[in-house]
């Protein structure tokens, strides 16, 4: 056997040895990796207490709700607290050609809310009053234009105000009589 042939065989054995060592290392690494992946499902870990899904308190019983009577009481209280009285003379007078309408419109003492009134003729607002507190009234309105004819139906619209917002609208129909 020549020197060259012996060297070739020796090299071949060394290469096979290294391939074998490499294969063993790869298998060992794979084994360690797979073992680390399955760590959470370790039967020993399952014995640990399961953490709570959230905070708070769990109560016994069905969902609570207001009883029908409680709802009715609540609604009744709201309604009764909002009572408002309109007080208007059913007749107003105006001189022919004049724009000063004499009418009596009050925000009576029994009310708790402020209001202002509008005088409306055929859908057109002819007068808007200042804000009236309870126990205040107006006795004349300066219309934006005179009324024609002897008798005119007018609408006195109460705008009931609470905290700067209109919370109710109540109208009263009156008759304006023109005097010559």
């Amino acid at each position, binding site marked *: 056997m020549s020197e060259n042939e012996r060297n070739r065989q020796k090299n071949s054995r060394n290469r096979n040895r290294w391939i074998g060592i490499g294969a063993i290392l790869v298998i060992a690494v794979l084994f360690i990796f797979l073992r680390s992946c399955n760590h959470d499902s370790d039967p020993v870990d399952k014995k640990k207490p399961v953490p709570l899904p959230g905070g708070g308190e769990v109560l016994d019983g069905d969902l609570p709700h207001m009883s029908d009577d409680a709802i009715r009481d609540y*609604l009744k209280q709201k309604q009764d607290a909002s009572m408002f009285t*309109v007080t208007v003379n*059913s007749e107003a007078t105006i001189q022919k050609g004049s724009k000063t309408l004499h009418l009596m419109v009050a925000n009576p003492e029994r009310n708790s809310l402020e209001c202002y009134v509008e005088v409306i003729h055929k859908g057109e607002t002819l007068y808007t009053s200042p804000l009236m507190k309870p126990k205040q009234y107006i006795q004349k309105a300066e219309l934006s234009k005179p009324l024609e004819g002897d008798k005119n139906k007018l609408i006195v619209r109460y705008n009931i105000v609470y905290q700067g917002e209109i919370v109710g609208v109540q109208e009263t129909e009156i008759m304006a009589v023109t005097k010559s």
Partner: protein
Amino acid sequence: MRTSFSKKIVSAALLMSLVFGSAVASADQPIDPDNGSTVDVVGTASATTIVVTMPTVLSFAINPNNVKPFTSVPATVVNSTYAPVDLQILGITSASGTDTKVVDAASHTDQEWSALGRSATTSQIALGLESVSGTPITVWSPAEIEGVTPSVSAGTFPLEPNSSEEIQVVAKHGNAWDVAKTLNYKLYVRVALTEG
């Protein structure tokens, strides 16, 4: 003697007053023996003051998880006027911030109302008023029109002089409310002396 004199004085005075009185009457208003006399009767009638009290808030609650989802309570309307008045219902409109708008009650059948889905439930409701006491009357509000104030009577509740009437809200609505809501509406009413 003094008593007798006093009686004579009184009697004379009465007699004179009768004669004098009849003389005045005959001078002012001559009596026609055939037709009698005419007397002018002059009276004055002051205009009636209309005084009506009613709530500005009409409350209701909807619980879609109940067999009867709609709850309202009677509200008292007091007519303190010494004359009959008509309480006219002009309409109900949603206040700003309320997306559930008032629609015509006849826009759906009762079955359709209860079968409305989420979108329709939260956007539509029909509201009206019914009398609790007295003659049963129900007045449904017309559909609201944005920016338009109701001005035409949709129905009337007659109120007797110096009396009270109980009315309450009625509604037709869907039941698919995905979130709890506060619904605010304005009621437009008009009071007028009863015609006729």
